[in-house]
């Protein structure tokens, strides 16, 4: 099979590509220029960043063709602008998930298929299993620490059928060792943790540059009292504890958390951890990795990339469009904008974006 191996310039995608070559596939390496190359003189979007060079070096060592695909405009429109808009609306997006949904396994995969490739292989830690009938199941990685099935939970069956995750059964240390044995210079390259388009890790600063200053009050949720100020409500996330700049301690002496973010009113509401508790959530239209179950079922739900999966009941909403999730135990730190990935043990069933949360189940959503 002709396989497009997405080479980020990191160790994981390098080993993933190497394994596809070993498996006998006809592999072509492609580096996705996501964030736009730094320009030299005016409009020239040329000249390599280190990652593109590392990716090219990997391809050369593997003896496979290598190209750079410029997806920067699409990435900006689909991922970066969405990221900024979601924060501006007081929601909490996951750009990696969004990138897989709109770029890597959408625009890039579609183009690859049209150009004659059979699959796109990446260095994601997740497993795929194909049934005798050809149905593909997405599973958590063997390395629980590295598992990235959450950010892949947005892929429907027709995308999963053309995905390959050669690292799913491995643990990270093995992958590094393998890279070293294979003579890949990226073996010792540090892992990337940050959002790729916020390389310094300063998300607040990034948002401030895009959205401008929007100072306002920090309000105590119980008393309505103003307890502090902020430079932009969009920089806060529900459940956040650090960086609140609250002068006075809470009456009970316990830490305060962000309970609500209202960028339009420029208000950040804070309160004790107990006030964060959420019993359930309204969901947008889900993406199912397999078939749409069409009815209520019990699952494990995960709403953060590296969060725990917790028992949850999900069912179609009464309005016929979205779905509803009811957590078995109250959750702290669920925020609108997050994606709730649904699992049956290690198997990913699908996912949906959280549109709203509630504390006590309102009558409107009771089954």
């Amino acid at each position, binding site marked *: 099979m002709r396989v497009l191996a997405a080479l980020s310039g990191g160790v994981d995608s390098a080993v993933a590509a190497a394994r596809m070559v070993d498996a006998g596939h006809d592999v*072509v390496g492609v580096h996705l220029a996501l964030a736009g190359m730094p320009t030299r003189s005016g409009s020239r979007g*040329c*000249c390599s960043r280190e990652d593109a060079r590392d990716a090219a070096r990997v391809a050369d060592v593997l003896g496979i063709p290598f190209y750079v695909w410029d997806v920067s405009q699409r990435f900006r429109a689909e991922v970066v602008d969405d990221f900024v808009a979601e924060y501006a609306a007081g929601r909490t997006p996951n750009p990696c998930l969004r990138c897989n949904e709109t770029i890597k396994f959408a625009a890039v995969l579609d183009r690859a298929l049209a150009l004659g490739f059979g699959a796109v292989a990446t260095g994601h830690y997740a497993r795929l299993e194909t049934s005798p009938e050809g149905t593909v199941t997405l599973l958590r990685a063997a390395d629980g620490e590295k598992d990235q099935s959450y950010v892949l939970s947005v892929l429907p069956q027709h995308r999963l059928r053309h995905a390959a995750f050669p690292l799913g059964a491995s643990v990270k240390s093995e992958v590094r060792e393998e890279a070293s044995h294979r003579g890949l210079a990226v073996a010792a390259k540090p892992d990337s943790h940050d959002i790729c388009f916020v390389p310094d890790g300063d998300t607040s600063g990034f948002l401030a540059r895009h959205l401008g200053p929007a100072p306002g009050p920090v309000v105590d949720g119980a008393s309505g009292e103003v307890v502090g100020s902020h430079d932009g409500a969009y920089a806060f996330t529900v459940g956040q504890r650090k960086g609140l700049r609250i002068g006075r301690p809470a009456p009970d002496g316990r830490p305060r958390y962000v309970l609500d973010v209202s960028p339009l009113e420029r208000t950040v509401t804070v309160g004790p951890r107990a006030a964060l508790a959420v019993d359930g959530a309204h969901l947008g239209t889900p993406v199912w990795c397999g078939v749409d179950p069409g009815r209520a079922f019990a699952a494990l739900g995960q709403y953060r990339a590296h969060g725990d999966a917790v028992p949850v009941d999900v069912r179609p909403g009464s309005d016929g469009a979205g779905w509803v999730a009811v957590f078995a135990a109250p959750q702290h730190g669920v925020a609108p904008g997050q994606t709730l990935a649904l699992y049956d043990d290690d198997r990913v069933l699908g996912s949906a974006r959280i549109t709203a949360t509630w504390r006590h189940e309102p009558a409107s959503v009771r089954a």
Partner: protein
Amino acid sequence: MSAYLDHAATTPVLPQAAQAVADELGRFGNPSSLHASGRAARRRVEESRELIAASLGARPSEVVLTAGGTEADNLAVKGLYWARRAGDRRRRRVLVSAVEHHAVLDPAAWLAEAQGAEMETLPVDPWGRVDAEAVEEAIRRDPASVAFVSVMWANNEVGTLQPIGDIAARTRRYGVPLHVDAAQAVGQVPVDVGSCGADAVTVSAHKFGGPTGVGALVASPDLDLVPVLHGGGQEREVRSGTLHVAAIAGFAVAVDVAVAEQPERRRRMTALRGDLVARVLAAVPQARLNGDPDPDGRLPGNAHLSFPGCEADALLMLLDAAGVECSTGSACSAGIPELSHVLLAMGLDEEMAASSLRFSLGYPSTAADVDALVGVLPDAVARARAAGRLSLRGA
């Protein structure tokens, strides 16, 4: 079946040139040394220089050896600007054609950014040709403020020849120095530096069968040039650095052969290119030819075509997989084909510019190369068109 159709990027080293390089690497000596080994090396350098000069219609004293075309262009652009400004502070205007190679455009832009220059780009017609009259007009606006003019002999992307003689006659009239980048021209069309009227001419050895990393700026010793590289004072103090004797020997052999064979190469390549263009247009009727269609107005080996609805990098990848090697224009280290400033200057819209490929023939090209291209191109075009547009450039 495979085909190399990117000779404008680089072309195979002639066997005679490779032999000369290998022979020279077996000898040693610094041509600047005063002892016997140095003298022997210097003799070989000077013999090479004489051969290079004779091939290009220049005097040996005019040949400033460099580490390639880019360095020669930088020496011309920066060296001329600095020298001219030192002579008269008013000479700030740098007039360059809109279709110059980045080795001219980027140093000129840098002069404007960092050295107080004013960069003016000279427009081109839809074939990519500079109007000599427009050059004169630009000078005439304020002759005393012009540092120099730079117009290439032949365009590297679309192959259009520039009216160098006509431009030179006009720059002469105003006493303005003219630099000409002839990197693509030597070996393809007659290049006579002595009679062309230019004050400085860039030559690059690997474009006509010599090794990479060596070239020359051919300029009269009377032309005032401030060095870019300062040091030991080699090359009449304009270009310091120990000379690469082996590369220079290969350069000399290659230019000698290329110029001697030039009429025959041109005749053969013109026929082959005509065949390539006709068969590509027949196989892919939507394709559009760029550059001057008149064989007398262009490089014989260059065929530049747009394939509407396709992204050039997708086409390039598909052709590469099928063994056909071509280019989206000028090579770029990051591998992202950028929109060609040449095509945009010629008036192509962004979508058309993003769908363009350059096929360039060289002295080893044969009819089999054209057969290979025509055999795989229609399928590649169909696939690339189906793949649509990923980059959204020009959208």
